Structure formats: C-alpha cells, structure tokens
C-alpha cells in the first residue's frame, strides 16, 4: 500500500505513542482528542504497521483487580513516518508563519 500522508490528528496520536504514552485513554489525555477520534486513528496506524499493540501482563492486571489493558508501541516504520510527517508539518508551519505573525492577508489569525 502506498504510504499516505498522515492526518494531523493521526500524527498527534503517533507522536504521543512515540513519547511513551501507551494506553488509549492516556493518549486521549496527552493529545486532548476525543475517544471517537483516537481509537480509529490507532486502528489506522496499526493497519499501516506504524504502531503495534500488545496486551499487558495478565498477572499484573489481576493483582490490581482489573482486566488487562492493551498498549501500543511505535514501530520502526512508525518512527520514519513520524519524522517525515514532522518535517512536512514544520515546512507547512514555516509557510504559515506570516499568518500567525499578522503579516499575511487581512483577517489572518
């Protein structure tokens, strides 16, 4: 499958995972994205092979009297994709800079 450009929310999720945030609900906290956004993004990332998921150790979950949680880790391909996306977004950011600084068209942000 040809690599597609990752959407901004997907990049945010991937970035959170790369930063060591592993669990779905923790990713929501880290990115301030809604659950209905984060999980489909995780699904997409996993299908593209950019992240992989594992179940945590059952014994540990049992000790805490709760079911086991699923955690996500970034893959090698994920790291590359994240870097590419970061570069793209950075370039976009440079291009958009004038708008933020108020030098752009009238009514800019």
């Amino acid at each position, binding site marked *: 499958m040809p690599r597609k450009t990752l959407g901004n929310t997907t990049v945010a999720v991937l970035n959170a995972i790369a930063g060591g945030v592993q*669990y*779905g*609900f923790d990713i*929501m906290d880290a990115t301030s994205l*809604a*659950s*209905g*956004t984060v*999980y*489909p993004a995780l*699904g997409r990332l996993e299908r593209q092979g950019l992240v992989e998921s594992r179940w945590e150790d059952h014994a540990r*979950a049992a000790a*805490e009297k*709760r*079911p*086991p*949680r*699923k955690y996500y880790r970034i893959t090698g391909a994920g790291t590359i994709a994240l870097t590419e996306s970061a570069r793209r977004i950075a370039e976009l950011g440079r291009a958009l800079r004038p708008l933020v600084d108020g030098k752009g068209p009238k009514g800019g942000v």
Partner: protein
Amino acid sequence: MIHEPDSRPRLALLLLRLISYLVPASRRREWRAEWSGEIVHRGQGATRRHMRKRIGLLRRTAGAIVHALWLRKQEWSIDLMGQDLKYAFRIFRRRPLFAGIIVATIGLGVGTTTSMFSVVNGILLRPLPFASPEELVMVWEHNLPRNRPTNVVSPANFIAWGERNNVFTGLGALTAISGTLTGDGEPERIGLVMATAEVWPVMGVTPAIGRTFTPEEDLPSAGRRAALLSYGFWQRRFGGSRDVLGRVLTVNDETIEVVGVLPEAFRFRFPYTFDATESMDVWMAHQLPAEARSIYGRWLQVVGRLRQGVSVEQAQAHMESIAARIREERGDAMAGWSANVVPLHQQVVGETERALWIVFAAVVGVLLIACANVAHLLLARSTERIPEIAARTAMGATRTRIVRQLLTESVMLGLVGGVVGMALAFGAVRLTVLLGADTVPRLDEVGIDLGILGFAAGLSLLTGIVFGLVPALQLSRPNLGDALKEGGMRAGTSRGHARLRTGLVVGEVALSLVLLAGAGLLIRSFVNLVETGIGVDAENVLVANVQLPDSRYPEEENKIRAFEDLVSRVSNIPGVMEASAITFAPLTGAGSATDFRAFDKPEPQPGEEPVADIRWVHRDYHRAMGIPLRAGRSFSEADGADGQLVVLISEWMAENIWPNENPLGKTILMEWGDTLVAQVVGVVGDVRHGGPNMESRAKIYWHHVQFSTFDFMTLVARTDRDPMEVLPSIRQAVRDVDPLLPVYQAETVDDLLAEAIAPQRFTLVMLGVFSIVALVLAAIGIYGVISYSVSQQVRELGIRVALGATGRQIVGSVVRRAFLWIGGGLLIGTGVTLLASSLVESMVFEIEPTDPVAISLAAIVLALSALLASYLPARRAGRVDPARTLRTE
C-alpha cells in the same frame, strides 16, 4: 448509580456492552476487552466524590460508538467493496450476453411497471386537486325503470334536495354550455359554465385574485351576472392583468362582470357538457330563474360535499328517502325517479379505472416474468460457479463474504437494469400521455416524480436482492465442498433446481398466454367497434357548429331562415356534394331526449313511458350523413311550418314500439312545452350517438322548419375531397350570412369517430405492447432454461449419441420435453384466462370474453415462439460430439 460503593463503572460498562453490538462480530470480543480494560482502569477509585471524572468517563465511553461504526465501515470498506464491484464488473466483461440479458430483462420489467405505475398513480391514486376531495360527490337523478343512474337533475329537485338534506354541507349546481364573447376584438367562442354560488364553498375554491360570487348575486333578481375567469383564459385573453377585476364582458349578448379569477390548478371535468372544447373559460352566476324551477326539464349537474363523518352510503340512503318523499308529493310526474350519490373521484375516473387496473395487472405479469427470468439466469449461472465458490471457501472465504460478493453482483445488475428501466419509463410515460391525452381523464396530470423514481429504484433493488439472495445462500452452503468432489458441473441438476426451472417455464408460458389472449380479445373487440361504426357514412364529412344569438335572432322564424340560408350557401361551395344541419350531431357529446307516446298503444304506467332521443334536422340530413332510409320517405320542402307535423323515426324505435307492424302513418304524442302530435312518415337507420359501443335507442327526428327549440345547429357537409380543405369556404359562407357568427368545433366525422373509440384504442395499445414484451421475455426465459438444461446434459447426450442416437432424435427429445412444459403452461394459462374473462366483460364489444379464437390465436403465437426458443438450444444439443464431451469428464 453514581452512589454505588462498588468502584467498577457499571453504567459505562453497560453502555459499552450495548455499543459493542455495532462492532462486527469477528472483532467484538477483542474490542470489548480493550475498551473495558481502559474503562475499568480509569473507573477505579472514582467514587461519588469524583462525579466529574465519572461523567468524563461516560463521555469517553460514548465515543466508542464512533469507533464501533468506524470498524463497521472498515468491514464494508472501500477495499472490499471495490473488490466486490470489480468481481461484479467482471461479469460484464466475461459474460456480456448473460449480463446484457439480465439488465435488459430487469430494464423492461422495471420500465413497464414504473411507467404504468405512474399512470395509475396520477389517475387513480392521487387525490383530486380540491380541499378534502374525498368528501366531494356528485348527486344525480336516477331513473329506475330506464336504468339511468346518472341522469341530469331538474332545478326543482335540486332545490328540494338542498332544502331537505342533512348530509351535505352544501349542494351546488352547474351547467356547462358554450357562448360567444363579443366586444373588443374578434368574436370568440368560449366555454361557459353556469354555477350556483354554493359551488365555491362546496369545492373549497379560493380564487387566484378577486373573489367568488355570493348567494345574493346568484338570485335571479340580482341583475348583471357576476363571473369568474379560468386562469388559462385570464392569461390568454387578458394577459394575466389584475385590471380584469370589475370589467364588464359581453357573452351571448348579455353583460357580465368579472369578480375573480380561478386558481391555476382548478380543474373540473363535467360528466356532461354542451361544450365539446371543455375549456370552461368563464364561470358565471347561475341565477336559476323562478320559471326554470320545475321538475320537468333536467339539465343540472349537482356537486355536494359530505358533512364530516357522513359516508357515501349514508348520504345515498338519505337521498333515496328524500326522493321517495318527493315522489309521494309529486305523484306521476316523479314516478320512477330516485337519487344517486357518486363520489367525485369515481365520477371523474369512471370506467377508466377498471381498464387501468387491468393494464396494471398485465404489467405486473410482465414484471413477474422478468423476475422469473432473472431468477433462473442467476440460478443457472450459480451452478456454473460452484467450483469457483467451493475453491474460495476452501481457501478460507467466510460465508458472509461470499454471500456479499454474490449479492453485490446481483444488486449491481438490478441497479443497472433499474437505470435502463427508468430511462424506458420516461419515454413510455411521455408516449402514453401523447397517446391518450384527450381520452383518459387526468392523463395530463401524469408524470414521473421523485416518488415514482423511488418506486423504480426500490423495485430494481428488490429484484436484485431477492433474486440474488436465493442462489447466493445456496452457493454458500457449508457442505459445498462436496460439490467439488462431485466434479462440480452436475451438482446444479439437483431435483429442486430442476423443479424450479420447470415451474418457471410453466409459469411464464401461462402468464404470457393470459396477456396475449387479453390483447387478442381487445384487438377483436376493437375491429368489431371499427366495423360497426355508428351508423353513418363517416368518409369525407365535416361538421361545424353555429349558434345564433337571441338578441339578433329573436324569433324562431329568424333562426329557421338563417339556418336554411346557411345550408344552401354551404351546399353551393365547390367540393361540397351534400350539405345539411342537425341539432346535436352524433359523437359531439350532449344530446336531448324525452318521453313520448305511441297513440295506438295503451297508455303506459307513469314512469314507464318510452323515451326517445330528439333531434332537429335540416331536411337533407340523412342523405348528407349517409344514413339509410329503411321505409317511407324523408323530409321535403313540402313539410313546412304550416303543414301536418311529421317525424322520421329510427329503425330500433320502429322495431321496438311497433314490432311486426308498419310504423308508417302511426301517430306519436310528445310533450315539449306543448303537446305535439306528429305522424311517422319514414324510418331511418340507427345512429349510435355516443359511439359504436353504445346501445341503439329510439330516436325521433323533427324537421327544424316545423319544430325547433334550440338556437344552435351543426352544419354537415359531405365533400369530394379532404373535408378540411373546404372549411375556410364554410367559414366565409357563414360570415356572408352574419359576420358576427363564429364557426366553432369544426371536425371531420372520421376524427370524431377515432376520438370516440380512442379509450378502447388506448387500452388496446397498452395491453398489446405489454403482452408483446411479455412474449419476448417469456421466449428469452424459455430459451435460457432449455439451453441451460441442454448444457447440463451434455454428458448424457454425448453418451446417447455414442450409443447410436441420431442428431434428429436428440433434437426431438429436447423439443419434446420443452413442449411438455409449454403445453402445461398453455393449459394453466387457458384456465386462468377463462377465470379472468369476466373482468374484461364490460370492456369488450360484441365478442364473448372467452372468445375461443382469441385464446387459440394467442396459444398458437405463444407455442410457435416457445418452439423457436427451445429449438435453438436443441439444435445445439443435436450437434454434440460424443468423443469430446466424454473426454472432458
């Protein structure tokens, strides 16, 4: 629940459980585990003091819906869908004939059904354009002994009904006539309606501009009549200007004042009209004069609106009791007369209803045949695909996956067929409207709208799903693997399939026979109609109407002289061989009738007097119209105003009033203002005034010089060329007599005749087209079934050839079996045709609805087509090469 001591977030977990059912079953467990792992982890320690936290958790859990739907969508993802579609399109590439036949079949089925449904919807199902149209009725006088249930109403009865009933919110009376508009510009012939003031509230009409007229303006003493213009007339004559309000027009030399314009959608179809244009341009106050309020002379058409909660049956019973009371009060004068309440919709749609439903049934028959074909083709193909499907199943494709792919195929075929069908329907509806525009009521209101398109789309989708599902489910059976072992090719010849195929052929043949026999019946009936005619020689005859206004032709004498003058001028026009005139020409709608007495017969019971159509003619009328003189003489110039009153009577009247007697010299008495006593001097051929399918009736012709009461006549001219060529000269001749007289509704009798039988032609063409479509589809179906069964038997046939059977024997055996099925279908079809024959009884003319000629003709046509359809594959079977077929096994 928030106050629970248990720290597990139960509400969130319950919600999650519910949402989990949205997730595709294969992923549900894992999905639930992942989410509940997070939820429980988060919920831990969030007790009642952490309300905000728990609500946040609930909100996140609710977000699982989005995730679940996303997964569901992935399941039906573009990839898989695209794969399905790619497979489906492969059919078109690999089996273009198969796909083409299915698409064409569904297209024909959906197209014909859709077009006919839009016709039925527009005419029968859509309510009339009035407020609460289901409450509207027409009320008629019902002549019991003469079986005339919808007779026009006398003013006295109309008034009595209005005063005495408690079932209607109101009753209004209408009379459709025609008039001449004079004043600025050319005199113009216009459709004129006299309406009582009650008509407007009864019909619930709100004028486009201005107002309707009031009961006060409807009184005979009110003076100048108030009038409403039809929207079309307002646009045409006055350019839609609002200044028209308050204008005074001159119609039939009487001034009327415009008070309003009717809404654009307002349309009322008069069951009886004296104005064949049916344009109904001006609606003016009726102002029923006191002297007209008699029980004699029936000429009103009455509309009423049922009070809320009153049924038609209740109104009918109530009106009958009122009529009974009036009978008691009036004695003989009302003997035999009752009242009849008819829902307006029924009145408008009338006899068309039965014809339309029959044609619609025919179309449903076509659709059924189409569906049967599609089902068979898909089934036949599905058996061919057993090895493919089995292989895919063996490689791990799930049952859902396979069903989905097969369904995608058949749904796509259905939808492509549906598009073809819709295109077909657009064309067919336009054609239908063109064909029947003037003959079928409300046909001009028929069109294809979104609802109809939805109907078509739904129909094709349904065809695709239903007929794709059966083979799809069969093919995806878990034990399909066995099919592979059996060698695949023969698995489909199971007994169930074979029985289904036989059923399809038998059913198709039976249905087609019913349709073809119906069409054959209508064709024979139509031929009868055309051959019977109406009793006149219709070739090269022109009729044109002239009306003499009272203001300039006040005395009867003036009118007689003017008509004599007109006829003699017209007869002098080059190209005119005969000229004459009549009041109420045949096929022009309205007529006039009254009861009479034969002087030499015993006086009949009140209410049982014989009735005759009354016509006033110029003396050469019968010769000009080609109506044969059966006995005695025709009128002559000697039958003048001062001479002995003489009449001509119709053959039917002679035979029924004086059976086995010579009617010549007999005397008749007729009340018409005065008692008229006249001698019968001649008998002429019957003329069926309303059209070839009308019963002959008694008819009395008066010489207009001796007795006439109407101020209009229809000029009749028989020409030696196209009658329309002499029309300008006739107009000129009329202008020469009086430049202010318009000539209106000039038509050839041939055209009138064609118009009169147009409804029958319409039904005939529709049923004819549909039965041909059915025949073609049935032939395709038979071809498909036989060629499929031949292909299934290649091995068996090969063995037989190897054992010494000749090609002819093989062909013979295939055709013989096909004929067994076809014969079965013909037998069943004949049975159904005979059972259904009573439905068309009222639609056919001078032919038994069980006519053996029509049925056997249909059977022969069908049998020949079926023979051809089964011979082609049989011939292929005859050429089977045993060596090759056996080798392939």
